[in-house]
């Protein structure tokens, strides 16, 4: 008898360790979320300390191992070209065409193949489907006016002993007929390099020099040329667009004199796949103590070129030409005390660690830390915006690594020797980069594609910055699970008091009911997301009114958004009223589903554009984790609940997208230039560039903000 009893008593099996760990974390979800969030923010602030020095990953590149061949003879040639261009009378109506002819003549004298590329600038419509189309499509069907077109000039040097399969592209944006002296300087640097490359014996790839017509925007001309380059038409005609306005084309070409016409064609000149591209601009920035080089690398949706390309340029500029290299920085003129304090703290910690153990070398000086943080913030912001920071962004759409180089002379003087020295330095830099890329056998593949720069020679790779994001996002599923469990238990506990144990049938029905309660919360979350999509699409209609000012458009947009929310609320009959409504656990269920939605949205966005997800997580995670109905806290009136109320209000206010935008603008540019229309312009730039950040704001950030506000104002 005793044996059977002991047999019947099966011992309680201990659950597996990972299940136990999960249950432990969920039951202590508050502590875990506080720890993880602070660790996430701290990790983000620690990133400049964890940055590594850059190095050349691809052994074949060997930048700087050859001495430069550019000499003053090439500079003199370039000066001849510049003199001829400047002697053109700019008042003439066809000054642009004349300068193009001069350039074409010089290029074909070098032995290069010259061709013209005609393009029409696209209209700036908002079309919802543009976010999902590739850069190849979409332009053919548009209407354009034949009178507005731009013409790029393209020169190609074929490598004498190479196989002609690959090319290196050099782009100089130039406004034909309406240029200033800096743009002409960039032309002269490019021409001197081009003339040198037509004579050297070490060329293994073809060289393309694109003089992009920048009257309709630099990016647009380069993008149009790339589109036509990568979609060859085999019907013998140039392209559909140009043929639609035939008379302009013929008039342009046939008036050339016969000497030039031999080498100039109206067919499209191509040179194989592009190994790398450099966009060269010379700008006039006064007050610099040395010739400066600024590098811009971000392309659309936060994509970056291979880090090796930046490393080559940085190495050659610093170690060979003695230029001062810089990358965009935020807040460089602001005196942020808290940042200095943080920098000094880290420096102190590093010194302490080194005194404990000489092998622990992770401290950096406070000034380096401040510079690293400002550069990191700027890098993160520009990647998050998803808008390319220069014409090089057009190349990334075709998987070509490209950067924009902006060289500024020390003083803009008319001193000829000073200017020639500047041209020589710039030309040698470009020649060195081209020679290095010339050595490549394959596309750039060795170095990083996902990174953040904290200085021109320091970077943080994806494996390190992912940790900050993961720490911020990790408490979300835990809190969601714990809220769900709490909501279920609470009702179960409440109901148990009221029902007798014999009422098992209704108990079972209630249990079934309870386990599907999250459906109503899910329905509300879904409806709010649909509203988010509607808000995203509203500007399509607002843009049809062409005369409205940005402020009017913004205000009307807000008004229409609130109207549509009201309509949805009325139509779908307020998902808040059900048979078993207004229970204590219901806002918990809603919060749980909201947090799950935020988690999924952030994870999906981190795949598309990591920087947007990081900034979004910084704004959304604290607010959503802290959200609780305000009424009980106000009723309770204790210090803790008061503190909670304040936190919730502040976080809820700050996370609203327009408020965030205006707050940041006010901090960095001064409070007097806040204009409602600025936010509309900013958003317009997002959808004009087909940035995924726009979709993120509308489909993840805004709905979740509305849901959190609803939780705050929940009446229970």
């Amino acid at each position, binding site marked *: 008898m005793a044996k059977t009893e002991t047999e019947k008593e099966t011992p309680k099996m201990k659950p597996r360790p990972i299940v136990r760990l999960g249950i432990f974390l969920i039951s202590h979800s508050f502590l875990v979320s506080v720890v993880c969030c602070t660790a996430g923010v701290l990790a983000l602030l620690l990133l400049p300390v964890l940055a590594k020095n850059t190095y050349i990953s691809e*052994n*074949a590149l*060997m930048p700087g*191992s*050859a*001495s430069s061949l550019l000499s003053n003879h090439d500079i003199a040639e370039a000066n001849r070209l510049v003199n001829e261009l400047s002697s053109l009378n700019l008042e003439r109506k066809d000054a642009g065409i004349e300068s193009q002819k001069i350039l074409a003549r010089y290029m074909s004298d070098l032995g290069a193949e010259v061709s013209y590329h005609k393009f029409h600038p696209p209209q700036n419509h908002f079309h919802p489907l543009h976010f999902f189309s590739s850069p190849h499509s979409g332009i053919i069907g548009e209407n354009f006016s034949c009178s507005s077109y731009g013409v790029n000039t393209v020169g190609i040097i074929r*490598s*004498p*002993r*190479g*196989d002609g399969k690959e090319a290196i592209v050099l782009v100089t944006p130039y406004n034909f007929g309406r240029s200033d002296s800096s743009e002409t300087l960039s032309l002269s640097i490019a021409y001197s390099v081009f003339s040198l490359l037509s004579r*050297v*014996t*070490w*060329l*293994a790839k073809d060289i393309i020099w694109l003089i992009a017509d920048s009257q309709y925007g630099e990016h647009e001309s380069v993008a149009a040329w790339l589109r036509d380059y990568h979609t060859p038409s085999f019907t013998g005609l140039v392209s559909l667009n140009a043929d639609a306005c035939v008379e302009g084309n013929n008039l342009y070409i046939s008036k050339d004199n016969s000497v030039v016409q031999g080498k100039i064609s109206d067919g499209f000149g191509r040179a194989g796949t592009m190994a790398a591209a450099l966009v060269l601009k010379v700008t006039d920035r006064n007050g610099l103590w040395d010739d400066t080089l600024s590098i811009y690398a971000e392309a659309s949706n936060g994509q970056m070129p291979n880090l090796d390309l930046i490393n080559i340029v940085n190495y050659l500029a610093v170690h060979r030409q003695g230029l001062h290299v810089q990358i965009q920085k935020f807040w460089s003129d602001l005196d942020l005390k808290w940042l200095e304090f943080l920098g000094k703290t880290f420096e102190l910690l590093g010194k302490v660690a080194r005194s404990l153990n000489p092998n622990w070398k992770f401290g950096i000086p406070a000034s380096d830390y401040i510079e690293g943080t400002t550069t990191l913030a700027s890098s993160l912001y520009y990647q998050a915006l998803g808008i390319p920071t220069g014409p090089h962004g057009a190349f990334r759409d075709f998987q070509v690594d490209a950067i924009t180089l902006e060289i500024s002379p020390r003083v803009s003087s008319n001193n000829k020797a000073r200017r020639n020295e500047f041209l020589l330095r710039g030309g040698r830099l470009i020649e060195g980069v081209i*020679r290095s890329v*010339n*050595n490549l*056998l394959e596309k750039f593949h060795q170095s990083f594609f996902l990174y953040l720069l904290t200085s021109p020679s320091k970077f943080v790779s994806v494996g390190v910055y992912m940790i900050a994001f993961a720490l911020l996002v990790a408490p979300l599923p835990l809190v969601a699970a714990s809220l769900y469990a709490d909501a279920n238990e609470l009702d179960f506990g409440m109901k148990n008091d009221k029902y007798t144990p014999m009422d098992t049938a209704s108990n079972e029905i209630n249990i079934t009911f309870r386990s599907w309660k999250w459906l109503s919360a899910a329905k509300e979350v879904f409806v709010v997301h649909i509203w988010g999509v509607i808000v995203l699409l509203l500007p399509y209609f607002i843009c049809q009114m062409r005369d409205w000012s940005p402020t009017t458009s913004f205000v009307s947009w807000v008004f229409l958004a609130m109207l549509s929310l009201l309509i949805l609320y009325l139509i779908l009959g307020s998902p808040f009223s059900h048979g078993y409504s207004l229970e204590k656990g219901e806002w918990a269920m809603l919060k749980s589903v909201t947090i799950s939605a935020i988690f999924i949205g952030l994870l999906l966005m981190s795949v598309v554009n990591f920087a947007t997800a990081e900034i979004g997580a910084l704004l959304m995670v604290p607010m959503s984790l802290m959200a609780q109905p305000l009424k009980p806290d106000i009723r309770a009136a204790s210090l803790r609940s008061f503190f909670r109320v304040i936190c919730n209000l502040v976080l809820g206010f700050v996370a609203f997208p327009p408020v965030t935008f205006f707050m940041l603008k006010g901090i960095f540019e001064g409070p007097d230039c806040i204009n409602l229309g600025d936010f509309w312009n900013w958003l317009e730039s997002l959808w004009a560039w087909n940035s995924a950040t726009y979709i993120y704001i509308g489909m993840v950030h805004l709905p979740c903000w509305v849901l959190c506000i609803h939780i705050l104002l929940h009446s229970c």
Partner: protein
Amino acid sequence: MWFKIYSNNMVVWLVLLLLGSSLLFSSIDSASLSSSTDTTMHTNNWAVLVCTSRFWFNYRHMANTLSLYRTVKRLGIPDERIILMLADDMACNPRNKYPAQVFNNENHRLNLYGDNVEVDYRGYEVTVENFMRVLTGRHEAAVPRSKRLLSDEGSHILLYMTGHGGDEFLKFQDSEELQSHDLADAVKQMKEKRRFKELLIMVDTCQAATLFNQVGVSVVDRFTFYTLAFFERLNIMTMPH
């Protein structure tokens, strides 16, 4: 003489390799060894020169091998007793600023490529399999005599190899590796088949100090550079027999 010049670990490896090969010989029946060295006469000299890498940035390995080739040929070993294995893509590479010329020095005094470089295994024929076949003499019937190591038991053979190497291996043309035990096996087979009287193995791997040049790549490795410089001072008249 060349051991004194620098102290990188390549020298240590070279010494060890020589010691290892001598240990290998002594592990075989010493009686036969001593009898073979005593009774056989030195008949001829052979050289097997192998460059195991290709591509433009490995220019210096090509220059190393061509330096030894030039030296060996100038000082008496004719082409029919030199087996030269080269990828041979330097001289006519489009990236070469001086086409058809290969230099070992910044002053460009010495063009190692010249007019009469006879390469036996060229391009993609430089593989581990072909190398082992050359050493052991196990060829297919169709392989011509110029590609065979036709040494006998009185031959003195110089085996020179250069390229990228690492811990117990040598990298062949970016896709294969020659392990040290493979090389030891081949040498043992050569001993069994009595294919040499004396064998000198010289290996110069990369990561030795290199020299930069107008050509834009590292041009030669230091060991071979000094070896070449030493041998340039000798000529066939003054060399002791």
